[in-house]
């Protein structure tokens, strides 16, 4: 390694603006940047799809789109946001931060890193192209339940192939994280000294490696059912449609934690910095993350309480699901204990982290209610569920990603962002996210099913409110784009410490961080 380094490695890429630099880059920072911009573009596309949905739902009656297209919007919105936004954004953060946090020069497998990113634009181009195919895009929901999904037109094989690509990309990203964390830590950086972001990502990576192949198996069986005459999910041929749901959610529930665990890591980095006090209960945070990851494998059928499982199955999945509240509660309590008797300031990353704690907890509360199987019969497949998972994903995962960008942006580009604009972005986002998703609890409880393009008159007020909120939230994110571009081009120069009490190896590097993070291992206290 060191012999190569002398000849080939430079402090900066030779031609920073050439296409070749970005196509062939094996640098963890370049790839991290690509992932993050890709996620933002997908965020805008998926966001426009959400606005199509909300526009149609502004008033009762069919006004703008055909119901079939509406269904493909709900399906595609979910696929874009889950596979195209949250997962790539976290992988981008992992790329940027993990080597800097553990004192490594780069990721362990740089060429695979390049490949795992460059699969994504092709996968999503293919996914989006299905909207223009005969029969339209996939419209059976992102959960792809057969037999409905098998009614998809020409789009189906393309949808499945592009999901295979996304899975491939995630698995490679995950292998890279595991290899990096286990092999590239600086001497003295023991596992229990790693920042929680690294810990949560390590556990997330194992979840990805465990469940993405399960999804791949399930969707391949869909493909053979449709084109090769098999009957895995066709009762008439001896198969079982519900079997697909078991396979899907065996992937799908750990997937839910894949989308949230790295957020826990981000928040656990930000809160101590701005409270000027070390993280409370570091060890229990690590164990709680492990416990959540373990439980995530044995709760999948709580997504299926109404499919007609035997009583014993219902009870098992209800109890196991309720248990998740314990380690999740530990995390929230630990964050508050970290703040307790600290000396807090409220810069934008801190605001987003605090917003995360409050609103993620609200999503957690509705999650606890949903866990109660007999009551879930009323909640299941209504807007109450839509409200629940948007609370944990938007002011949960997305807020954590935004908080991470504010927190580490000065380290990435060497400039500070505008604090005033950042705070405005926070308040606009918080107000509109609640205006969008809080009323969904109401219409869901009052009986509005999800995934419908038109609704009964008693749901009209809160739908109108949600639509107004959605447009406000969408537009507020453009402010974020402006702010980030401004910071990259012309912000106040950042010090290497950036935040006065931030701890961690990344703050020992200059801002912007050098092209290769740690060429010689740093000393660990």
């Amino acid at each position, binding site marked *: 390694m060191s012999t190569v380094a002398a000849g080939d490695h430079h402090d900066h890429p030779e031609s920073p603006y050439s296409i070749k630099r970005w196509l062939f880059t094996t640098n963890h920072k370049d790839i991290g940047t690509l992932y993050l911009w890709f996620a933002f573009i997908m965020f805008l596309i998926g966001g426009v799809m959400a606005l199509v949905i909300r526009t149609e739902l502004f008033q009762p*009656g069919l006004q703008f789109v055909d*119901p*079939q297209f509406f*269904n493909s919007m709900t399906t595609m919105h979910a696929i874009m946001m889950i596979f195209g936004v949250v997962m790539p954004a976290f992988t981008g953060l992992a790329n940027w931060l993990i080597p800097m946090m553990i004192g490594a020069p780069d990721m362990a497998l740089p060429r695979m890193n390049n490949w795992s990113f460059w699969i994504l634009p092709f996968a999503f181009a293919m996914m989006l192209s299905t909207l223009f195919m005969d029969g339209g895009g996939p419209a*059976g929901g992102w959960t792809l*339940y057969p*037999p409905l999904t098998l009614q998809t037109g020409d789009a189906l094989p393309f949808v499945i192939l592009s999901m295979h690509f996304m899975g491939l990309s995630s698995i490679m990203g995950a292998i890279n994280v595991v290899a990096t964390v286990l092999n590239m830590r600086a001497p003295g950086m023991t596992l229990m000294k790693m920042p929680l972001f690294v810990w949560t990502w390590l556990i997330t990576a194992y979840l990805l490696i465990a469940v993405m192949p399960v999804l791949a198996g399930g969707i391949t069986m869909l493909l053979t059912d449709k084109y090769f005459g098999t009957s895995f999910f*066709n009762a008439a041929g001896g198969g079982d*449609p*519900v079997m697909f749901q078991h396979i899907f959610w065996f992937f799908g529930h750990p997937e839910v934690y894949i989308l949230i665990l790295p957020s826990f890591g981000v928040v656990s980095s930000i809160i101590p910095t701005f*409270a*000027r006090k*070390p993280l*409370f*209960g570091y060890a*229990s945070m690590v164990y709680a993350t492990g416990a959540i990851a373990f439980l995530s494998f044995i709760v999948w059928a709580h997504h299926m309480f*109404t*499919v*007609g499982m035997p009583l014993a199955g*219902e*009870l098992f999945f209800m109890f196991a699901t309720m*248990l998740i509240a314990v380690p999740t509660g530990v995390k929230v*309590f630990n964050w*508050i204990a970290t703040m*307790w*008797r*600290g000396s*807090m*300031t*409220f810069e934008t990353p801190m605001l987003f982290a*605090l917003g995360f704690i409050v609103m993620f*907890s609200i999503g957690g509360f509705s999650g*606890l*209610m949903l866990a*109660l*199987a*007999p009551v879930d019969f*009323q909640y*299941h*497949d*209504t807007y109450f569920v839509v409200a629940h998972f948007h609370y944990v994903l938007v002011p949960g995962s997305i807020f954590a990603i935004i908080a991470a960008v504010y927190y580490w942006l000065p380290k990435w580009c060497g400039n500070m962002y505008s604090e005033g604009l950042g*705070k405005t972005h926070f*308040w*606009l986002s*918080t*107000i509109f996210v*609640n205006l969008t998703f809080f*009323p969904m*609890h109401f219409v869901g409880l*009052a*009986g509005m*099913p*999800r*995934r*419908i393009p*038109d*609704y*009964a*008159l008693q749901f009209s007020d809160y739908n109108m*409110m949600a639509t107004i909120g959605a447009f406000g939230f969408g537009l507020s994110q453009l402010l974020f784009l402006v702010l980030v571009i401004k910071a990259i081009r012309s912000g106040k120069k950042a010090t290497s410490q950036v935040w006065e009490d931030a701890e961690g190896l990344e703050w020992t590097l200059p801002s912007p961080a050098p092209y290769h993070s740690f060429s010689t291992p740093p000393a660990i206290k």
Partner: protein
Amino acid sequence: MFAIKRLNAWLGLAFISVVSGSAFAGQPINMPPGVTDISLEVYNMHMIAFWLCVVIAVVVFSAMFYSIFAHRKSRGVTPATFHESTTIEAIWTIIPFVVLIALSIPATKTLIDMYDTSDYDLTVKITGYQWLWHYEYVEDGVDFHSKLQTSLSQINNDEEKGENYLLEVDNELVIPVGKKVRFLITSNDVIHAWWVPDLAVKKDAVPGFINEAWTRVNEPGIYRGQCAELCGRHHGFMPVVVRAVPEAEYQQWVAANAKPESATEYAAISE
């Protein structure tokens, strides 16, 4: 800078007024208690879980906001240095665990009741189609389809929408009050879900499989619901309407609608 601060203050105010304003909008915002013993139990459990969450939220968020208010740098606080306490961490692991056990006991009891389909008085076989329902009264020999009655012109906004817009059907499912009605639920094509909130019955209709559910309605009336599982283009347009009537009226309705041959067929099979 000052302008932005003032803008933020206004935004906060606007948020509070929107949230409090919503309480007066007059449309339903909660689960209906329904018209069966089970639906009432479900409603009560929902409210218990809700208030439990509210209490936890108030305690946790009060601690958080007190800390945000009191432990801030601008008040000249020097930060403490504590970062663990096994006792406290054990307490806030054990207390939620105990609360969860307390919550799971009534939930288990209700679930067992919901699964008990024995001792029924009559059986209705429900079959989902894209996009309508078929009802078959197994013992009484009545069967018919039930589909959306709202006119296309209402849906396309050419005509004013009626009171039961999208929640009205041509043939309602008629059941007797006070009798235990067992539903056998299946589908002919894709997966649907038969749901009536007032009965707290929601069960998937899966092709090739038969699911069971039951209800015993306490009050006569018309109860409306919808298909709850995405089933394609017109998923939003396949409502469920149940009309619960007194026993005598039900018998008259059966007499007027029965196709005797199918009832005898069932009797022959069951002997």
